């Protein structure tokens, strides 16, 4: 059984207006998203800004209200849960994009990493300190770091403090929202390697949210592509990168910069072809509102929002 099963998830934000400030419409940030993640795997959620990928992640962890649909974690439906203190919640943790704003600058590393422990476990001061030091060691920071403040660390180190906090309660699922987008390439490599290491050690499952297809390709087993709150395509890494079917996916894959300057001209021609195809077929692949159609299986693993025929 899959660890996380998301079925027809919808997150709508009300638009209020008029004299009585009544609901006059809704922004459909996430509009019918379904996917599942097997234990120990990494699932990549890809899309441009505004496509609803972060909203999906936040809805799963309970930071956004779920309008309809189900989110089953380990067989338990999370959509009905309201209490943040429930035990299920501690099995899901999040790593945020910006290591500069996601750590409280006025707290010491000890207090930052210990916060989830204080919420869920009754530890004495000495036990707590020991646990935090173990966690810091696990993420490759020295135990003396506990008395320091976030500003005393580099970007990569800060992101590792964020990871130490996320793994403090031994979660089963980690939602990583653009975990390396704010980091330099060499630091990016460090954090990605490290995430793969702890995944093996702790048998973690990742929901990896990113707009960087190069990194998604490196990290993920399965991938879902979102556009305007809906899925346009999902499948294994090979399905998406080697046989993209939807014009949106094709365009996205074509836009990845090629690291070999020799291919420059070839890449340019290819991109122009794809762009032409995209412009010509846009109306076939999207409905009047510019939304994608329902997903259909084209193989066991590969689903595409192909145009309705007839």
């Amino acid at each position, binding site marked *: 059984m899959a660890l996380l099963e998301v079925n027809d998830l919808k997150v709508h934000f009300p638009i209020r207006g008029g004299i009585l400030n009544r609901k006059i419409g809704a922004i459909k940030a996430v509009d019918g998203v379904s996917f599942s993640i097997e234990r120990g795997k990494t699932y990549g959620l890809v899309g441009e800004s505004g496509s609803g990928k972060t909203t999906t992640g936040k809805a799963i962890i309970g930071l956004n209200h779920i309008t309809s649909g189900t989110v089953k974690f380990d067989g338990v439906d999370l959509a009905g849960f309201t209490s943040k203190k429930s035990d299920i919640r501690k099995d899901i943790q999040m790593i945020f994009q910006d290591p500069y704003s996601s750590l409280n600058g006025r707290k010491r590393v000890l207090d930052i990493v210990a916060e989830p422990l204080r919420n869920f476990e009754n530890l004495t001061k000495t036990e707590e300190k020991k646990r935090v030091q173990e966690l810091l060691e696990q993420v490759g920071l020295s135990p003396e770091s506990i008395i320091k403040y976030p500003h005393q660390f580099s970007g990569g180190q800060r992101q590792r403090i964020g990871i130490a906090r996320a793994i403090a309660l031994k979660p089963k699922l980690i939602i990583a929202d653009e975990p390396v987008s704010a980091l330099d*390439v*060499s630091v*990016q490599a*460090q954090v990605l390697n490290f995430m793969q290491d702890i995944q093996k050690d702790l048998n973690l499952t990742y929901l990896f949210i990113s707009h960087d297809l190069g990194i998604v390709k*490196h990290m993920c087993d399965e991938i879902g592509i979102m556009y305007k709150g809906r899925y346009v395509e999902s499948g294994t890494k090979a399905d998406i990168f080697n046989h993209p079917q939807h014009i949106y996916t094709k365009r996205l894959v074509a836009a990845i910069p090629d*690291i070999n300057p*020799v291919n420059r001209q070839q*890449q340019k021609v290819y*991109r122009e072809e794809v762009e032409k195809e995209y412009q010509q077929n846009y109306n076939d692949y999207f409905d009047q509102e510019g939304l994608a159609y329902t997903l259909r299986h084209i193989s066991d693993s590969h689903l595409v929002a192909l145009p309705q025929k007839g």
Partner: protein
Amino acid sequence: MSNNILEIKNLKTSFRINDDYYAAVDDVSLSVNKNETLAIVGESGSGKSALAFSIMGLHTKAKIDGSIQFKGEDIVHIAAGKLNKLRGNDMAMIFQDPLTALNPLMTVEDQIGEALLLHNRQLSKTKRKERVIHLLNQVGIPRPEYTCEQYPHQLSGGMRQRVMIAIAIANKPELLIADEPTTALDVTIQAQILGLMNDLKEQMNTGVILITHDLGVVAEMADRVAVMYAGQIVEIADVYTLFQKPLHPYTRSLLNSIPAEDSVHDKLHVIQGIVPSLQNLPREGCRFKARIPWISEDAHEENPELHEVTPGHFVRCTCYQQFYFPEEKVEEESSHGTS
């Protein structure tokens, strides 16, 4: 000589921290030709933006030594009024974040119009509007008459960046400095903006300095590449040479740390240690030494200089000759062990 529009010699830009000056750009020399894109690559803290700001004369409190010649004229010790005539006219800059670089209280038309008006007082209002619409067309904005009336917050990120490019190219500059122009944008928009910059460069014969940390962008855009580390250029070469035969350990490490086709499920290379802060920069010997401790001490030069390895390909320090990745050594040893 006529081809060369920017010539920087021994540029040193220092900032004052606690009564001492620390050089963020330390002895950089480079040149840019017409219709050429020079990419400057490096991590944050390598001094690439400090270099760009020095060229544009945007540092107010820094101490600048050395010479920057723009079309044969020194612009380091130039009068402010004269510099203002050049900036936005003969040389222009595209900034990283279009939301903070644009004025939120001015319409698109006024912002682009301002750039035109400042350098040509005689321009009539109708002429100006014509030019603005032409520029918006040029940067690929679909309905220019409509966009003219809009404010920055009403535009998407890609559109804002296009407006900023329109402002930068308003007076057909001969030198365009783009500081991380696509870092804040989605990949598909990035591809469009980069394509646009390339077309404009060729149409207007502009020299472009492209500052970025994204090696993919470099591979697609650059004619020549300068790699910066700790305020110095450590390697400079044409783009094909740099990607096919990178020599400096820093360049090789950077190229190795990005996920590539065949890197899937392999470990990415991690550069040991961190980029030193401005105050802690090693000022003597090879600045990259501390991050490749497995290379023997005598591989480095005492005073590392740029060496021309093949024509146009310069590398700093001699440590590249003995450089290897620690992973390679392990493989070598284990293969020896089995044979």
